[in-house]
């Protein structure tokens, strides 16, 4: 087992060696511009891009012709939301979303709000779920887009996409989902789910950073977008800019592997997740699971270790890469907005750790991580005044202790 151990696979993933191998020629001999129509360098690049486009489409049950390559899910979210807002402005400017979306969605919607659009933020329950009926109730004849993520990047909650999609389809409203965390991690199908726009990111599924895609439905209904990037008219005018050929080739290969190995991947990551959870709950008291018990990404485990601060706990596992919802890990000193939206008490938000298990993690790594967490939590609880108070039966959650 090699240290440090990487268990932060929601932040990014390692490029699969098979992906890297496919990419390499496109940095050297096959360096052509996919838009060069009159020589073999261009043809080769274009053929590779088109093959990758088909692979990315297949991953989500779409045709390659519905895939627009971008620089990542952030750009895809921006393009979907701003592009729909502009193109359909004569219909209206009402949007529906929910508070645990990635900032790429929330901040883009804020821009539209400043320009006069109205946005409905549907509540989520304690597990992070949106109720499809709430989507239906919020729709108006001015609603142009519903945007609800596939899987949350912190707590892993999987939203009821098919139910929401059915409602949007029935009402004739476009449905976008940010599937940066979802695609390649569970069965995702744009037809079964009735989604019209899907944001994808290669680096979350063992592909390279800086490349992503937006799925744009071509029929029933045909979705139109105003571009946000103007120029040479690449990607059917929806996203100008010379294509990142090596990145796209890597994305295609990463998508192929995810699709072909999906069942194995789910079984592998879920088994490791359950092993980690079982070991921790056996050895430690006062643990709470953040997110949904079953409707969650197979590799996601988000736990609060009461009476222990998250950053301090991460220091106790310094050769392990995970992340925390603690304020101390952010510049703002605010704990995670996702956990707060779920109604997790702030004290427990400060105590949260996100374990992101991925393709390359092993049982030995999980056991090592578990043992480090257990030792760290025990050590920190022994020096925690809150633990002491809990042992003595003194409530502390809402207390505030003042300086003289």
């Amino acid at each position, binding site marked *: 087992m090699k240290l440090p151990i990487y268990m932060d696979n929601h932040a990014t993933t390692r490029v699969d060696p098979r992906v890297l191998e496919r990419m390499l020629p496109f940095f050297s001999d096959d360096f052509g511009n996919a838009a060069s129509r009159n020589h073999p360098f261009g043809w080769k690049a274009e053929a590779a891009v088109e093959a990758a486009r088909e692979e990315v489409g297949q991953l989500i049950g779409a045709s390659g012709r519905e895939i627009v390559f971008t620089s990542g899910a952030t750009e895809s979210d921006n393009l979907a939301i701003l592009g729909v807002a502009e193109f359909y402005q004569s219909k209206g400017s009402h949007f529906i979303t929910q508070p645990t979306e990635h900032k790429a969605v929330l901040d883009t919607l804020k821009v539209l709000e400043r320009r006069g659009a109205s946005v409905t933020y549907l509540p989520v329950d304690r597990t992070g779920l949106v109720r499809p009926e709430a989507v239906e109730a919020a729709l108006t004849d001015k609603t142009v887009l519903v945007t609800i993520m596939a899987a949350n990047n912190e707590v892993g909650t999987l939203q009821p996409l098919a139910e929401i999609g059915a409602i949007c389809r029935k009402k004739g409203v476009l449905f976008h989902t940010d599937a940066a965390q979802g695609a390649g991690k569970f069965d995702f199908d744009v037809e079964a789910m009735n989604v019209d726009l899907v944001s994808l990111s290669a680096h979350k599924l063992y592909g390279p950073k800086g490349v992503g895609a937006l799925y744009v439905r071509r029929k029933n209904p045909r979705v139109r977008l105003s571009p946000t990037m103007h120029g040479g008219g690449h990607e059917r005018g929806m996203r100008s800019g010379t294509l990142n050929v090596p990145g796209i080739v890597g994305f295609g290969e990463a998508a192929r592997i995810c699709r072909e190995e999906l069942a194995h991947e789910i079984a592998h990551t879920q088994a490791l997740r359950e092993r980690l959870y079982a070991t921790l709950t056996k050895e430690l008291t006062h643990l709470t699971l953040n997110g949904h018990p079953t409707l969650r990404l197979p590799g996601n485990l988000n736990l609060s270790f009461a*009476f*222990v*601060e998250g*950053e*301090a706990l991460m*220091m106790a596992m310094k050769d392990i890469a995970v992340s925390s919802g*603690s*304020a*101390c*890990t952010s*510049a703002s*000193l605010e*704990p995670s907005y996702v956990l707060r939206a779920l109604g997790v*008490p*702030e*004290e427990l938000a*400060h105590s949260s750790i996100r374990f992101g298990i991925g393709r390359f993690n092993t049982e030995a790594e999980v056991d090592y991580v578990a043992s480090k967490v257990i030792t760290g939590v025990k050590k920190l609880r*022994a*020096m*925690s*005044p*809150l*633990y*002491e108070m809990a042992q003595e039966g003194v409530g*502390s*959650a*809402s*207390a*505030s*202790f*003042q*300086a*003289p």
Partner: protein
Amino acid sequence: MTYSESVLNHYENPQNVGALDKSAEDVGTGLVGAPACGDVMKLQIKVGEGDIIQDAKFKTFGCGSAIASSSLVTEWVKGKSLEEAMKIRNVDIANELALPPVKIHCSVLAEDAIKAAIADYRKKQQSAAVGSPA
């Protein structure tokens, strides 16, 4: 976040973790911070002859910098008079631990904890004096 050598040292080997009998006459207890803000410090001092701090203990819920700040001040106050301990400033703590700007509040909390412990001790002494027969 990268940590200074001194924060890491205190985090790895925290000094004076523990508790003193908070009902004892000669013990002052300071409890500052809020769980919702992510840090709570409990600092205790045991005061002897000539108002000299003979022992100090802490328990802290907070990040590594908060733990290091508590550990450092318990070291500093031992052997000091109450008067001298009152003079410990958060900037001294922050400098010693090379805390970055976002962690300055940890040193502020440690200064507050000392002051709270001293105040608690003094209050106990006063009520003992008032309560004792003339």
